């Protein structure tokens, strides 16, 4: 119920403001994936990607089951709960496409 309310609120905000409502853990992603998570070529965007896809990618990075330049080292620092919260947040954002 609370999750739904949070998502509903997110959808009503401007992209930048919605980004700021993210779980704090997801703020770290914005240092490379764009301040609005829409990506900075060649770093892919996260906004608007299905949560299941984001969770699967992070889980695979963490387990060293997906080739990585840097994401394996990053993913191993986060808990399942943090990854789920970050994925839900980014999935709810409008996809901006790479700039």
């Amino acid at each position, binding site marked *: 119920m609370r999750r739904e309310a949070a998502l509903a609120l997110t959808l009503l905000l401007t992209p930048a403001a919605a980004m700021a409502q993210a779980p704090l853990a997801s703020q770290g992603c914005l240092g490379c994936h764009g301040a609005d998570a829409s990506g900075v070529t060649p770093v892919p965007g996260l906004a608007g990607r299905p949560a299941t896809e984001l969770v699967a990618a992070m889980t695979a990075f963490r387990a060293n089951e997906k080739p990585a*330049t840097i994401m394996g080292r990053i993913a191993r*620092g986060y808990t399942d709960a943090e990854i789920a919260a970050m994925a839900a947040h980014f999935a709810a954002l409008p996809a901006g496409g790479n700039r």
Partner: protein
Amino acid sequence: MISTLSRRGFLAAAGATAAATTLARPSIARAQGAARLVVVGGGFGGASAARFARLAYPWLDVTLVEPQARFVTCPYGNLVLAGRLGMDDITHSYDALRARGVRVVQDWVDGIDPIAKTLRLRGGATLGYDRAILSPGIALRWGAIEGYDEAASQVMPHAWVPADGSQTRLLRRQLEAMDDGGVVGIAIPGNPFRCPPGPYERIGMIAEYLKKHKPRSKILALDAKDAFSKQALFQDGWKQLYGDMIEWVPLSKDGRVVRVDAASRTLETEFGVKHQVAVANVIPPQSAARLAIDAGLADASGWVPVDPRTFEAKAAPGIHVVGDANNGAPMPKSGFVANNTAKQAVASAAALLRGEAPPEAVYFNTCYSHVGPEYGISIVGVFRPTATGIAEVANSGGVSPRGDLPEQRRFEALYADAWYRSITEDAFG
């Protein structure tokens, strides 16, 4: 207490507590007199704090006090030295923050009264706050290396506190003016200091320029320590890209510069060896910025001890100190850490203003370094507060793999550029 600069000061003074506890809707809280968040210092920490505060907590009245009209970043300054970028590429205005509702006051803060919760500005005004975020950066410890004072830095630039950009420009001009075959001397301090991989990225970027334009030249790096960030990766890259152009002298081989003579551009080490060089870049020992020390926020180490979750100074609750000025070890003094922890500090300040507990925290850092063309390396760290401080999450983070990995290096160079665009937008955009 009520300042001439504070538009809503009297309302906030009367209503901050009430607003924090009784008003549920942010828009109403702001309309009736917002709590005042004053951010001091407009670098990665301060600009990120001000931007995040306006976006995430629109009920906060946000003021940013910064003496410079524009911010020149220390990160990517090395790419200016390489000749890859111009100063405009690393200079950021505060216009976007203004458009987001941040009141930008161009002034120095000369004093802090944590009891009255006021800041004294050099221009004469007094600025009241309900919570303050200090991100004042570093001070160079003039005289810690004998002979290295502000005047000497006009001949032997540090290029480590960009300020108006003049130091970075000066070092670039000196490299351009140097004859082929000259020696570039770089004095590197012991830990802790701003941007641990920065001096070593600088070595590579200067070498990139010299290899192209003055290939008979040398770089002599005199270091006050025996080990450094991403050391094996840097040294692999130097050897591969620049052969024997670079000589790095560690502490144990008399690498520590203790005295300089600006007139003759001489760097003198502990055992009295005098290295006369054509261009001297002296990166001196550092401390938290003067403001933090004068306000009594720093301890004997020269850095500010902070709560690992809220970043409030141990010496002054209500003042959150982020960025290079604090003691955030084992986190490095990096722009990324400043950006990331500034948000935790703002979230904590907002929670405390509302009488709530500060949020759970996880901190993230990546420091990319360029070594040469299409050659980037990185170090990653994920950190969490503990009962006693801050700790890196076990089995996470670390440096790029070693070996002959051109695709890895090429991608990390591209990711580094993406990082710069992304994080400067997240701070100044």
